[in-house]
């Protein structure tokens, strides 16, 4: 990076809207929060892992239209898997919600310029939708919790059915996500 490029980059910082700074703060706060929850559930002291996660999140908010946010999500989930053994802990709900909020805010940042001020009506719409998603998350946790309480034995047949269903879903999703034939770049 040359000096002029650095100067341009610094100049751009002054043009960032207040709302954008709020989005950045929320994104970093979500990652820090999710990592802190993992640490607390694991019963250990806050360590360098949180700093590492926040560092990755900083890269993600600087480049929201890249796969950096995906790396952050993988890292945060990996930390959860490695640190926690209790699969039915209620702490998984705020963890999942924080990860979801991070995902949404970075997605919104990816499609808006740094100087943009997103319309309030749109934010309210996203809040409303997010409420449904959070409700679904709580519902899934409740099912998992109830099934764990019943101590239902494992079933190989159900596992196979689950994998087949998952494979079918992936194939359906892939075909639905691809561009229509007439719109594919040639």
């Amino acid at each position, binding site marked *: 990076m040359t000096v002029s490029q650095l100067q341009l980059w610094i100049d751009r910082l002054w*043009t960032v*809207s207040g709302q954008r700074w709020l989005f950045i703060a929320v994104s970093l706060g979500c990652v820090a929060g999710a990592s802190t929850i993992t640490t607390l559930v694991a019963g250990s002291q806050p360590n360098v892992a949180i700093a590492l996660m926040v560092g990755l999140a900083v890269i993600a908010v600087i480049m929201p*239209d*890249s*796969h950096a*946010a*995906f790396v952050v*999500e*993988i890292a945060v*989930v990996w930390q*959860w*898997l490695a640190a926690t053994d209790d*699969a*039915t*802990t209620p702490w998984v*709900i705020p*963890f*999942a*919600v924080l*990860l*979801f909020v991070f*995902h*949404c805010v*970075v*997605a*919104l940042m*990816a*499609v*808006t*310029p740094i*100087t*943009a*001020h*997103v*319309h309030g009506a*749109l934010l309210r*719409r996203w809040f409303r*939708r997010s409420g*449904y*998603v*959070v409700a*679904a*998350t709580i519902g*899934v*946790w409740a099912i*998992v919790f109830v*099934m*764990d309480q019943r101590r239902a034995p*494992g079933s190989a047949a159900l*596992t196979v059915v*689950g994998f087949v269903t*998952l494979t079918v*879903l*992936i194939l359906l*999703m892939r075909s*639905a*996500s691809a*561009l*229509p034939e007439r*719109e594919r770049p040639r």
Partner: protein
Amino acid sequence: MTTTGDESSLHSSGIANPWRPTVAYFRAAVGAMAMIAFALIWRRPDLLVIATPLAVVTAWSLLSRPGASPNFTDGLGHPTIREGDATNWHAAISGGAELDLVVAALDDAPWIETVPARGVVTGCAVDGSANLEIRVRSTRWGSRPVEPVHVLATTPWASFRWSTVTVRHPLTTLPLPALFDVNASTCPSDGLIGLHRSSRSGEGNEFAGIRPFQAGDRLRRINWTRSARSNELQVNSTWADLDTHIALVIDATDDFGVSEGIDGLASSLDGAVRAAGAIAEHYAPRGERVSLRVFGTTTPYTVLPGTGRAQLRRILDTLARVSPSTLNRTGYATPASRQRGVIGGQITVLLSPLIAPEALDLAVALGRQGMSVIVVDTLPDHAAQDEDRYVELAWRIRLLERRREVRMVLAAGIPIIEWHGPGSLDQVIRDIAHRSTGPRMLQR
């Protein structure tokens, strides 16, 4: 001037890209599937809970997946505005019900201010359609198109995006004439077409004098009483039914100083264009003939003499196209005496920073042909200020030379004034009127 555009000014955009899945969609879909798979393999139901929001987002995105590209139209409210006025860039986008967020970003351009600041506006689609509006204010005269606007539309959760870049919309900013008024008159006379009578005798109504008959004189002009006394045919001569001709000449060879638009510092060309606009706006609507000639530009600009509001509009339109050029300049090659209808009017007002020698040569040449010439010095005070002391020294030397050249022009009887708005030309016009009544020596 805030306006709303009509439908006729709307047109489709330039380059449009089809709907494409975003990185966020990829993140949600792959993340959800991977976590569900790991949950099954490692028997970690908590991963199912973590994957649920992303899975819901993925499913929601697939259900609201857009089909065809949306309809998009955009336009500019008014293609012609005055300096300091504003117009609106407006766009309408409509597609399926899946349309969620629309963002438009206007590229930065000099002398263009936008509301919202930075030229970025977001819209929330309702029932599959959204309207966007950016207020565009032009702070300097000129013909500059509005830069392309980058438009982006997304579906819920920003999972699919559609983008386009609009074409440049032409925008002409007419100079805002400076305040100007003249109380002096070259040849005071009431009536006729303009407020000031023509300097030429010819067909008209106002009595000018009695002279001997010449071939071509109308019989009804013969003054029989005088002819009987003198034993020679005498006719009544009249002043032509023409008005005062103000010939504006702009030296656009260079533009000195900083131009910060209507709200800030003005360059030499800003001063010349605004002063010319002010003079034209004062004289043309009052019935006086005004013409314009610009030299020093790549393309020569000439407006033939005319009068009225339409002539004023022609002059302002031409002034808006003026831009200095260092290559292929149009000099004042044609001798001034041959510029029929353009140069050679009652008063020639030459607006120049007096740095290029062509302007001073032209002023002296016109003066020697017996024409009334007023030179308006448009060099701004800040032009000679520079952070580089060597540049500043060079300017001081050039200004000393310029002072000497100006003295020579003044010695040739050509007035040079500084533009300061109303009354700028009063004294010199009085002097010209006074001088025109006396004998004059012409150099032919």
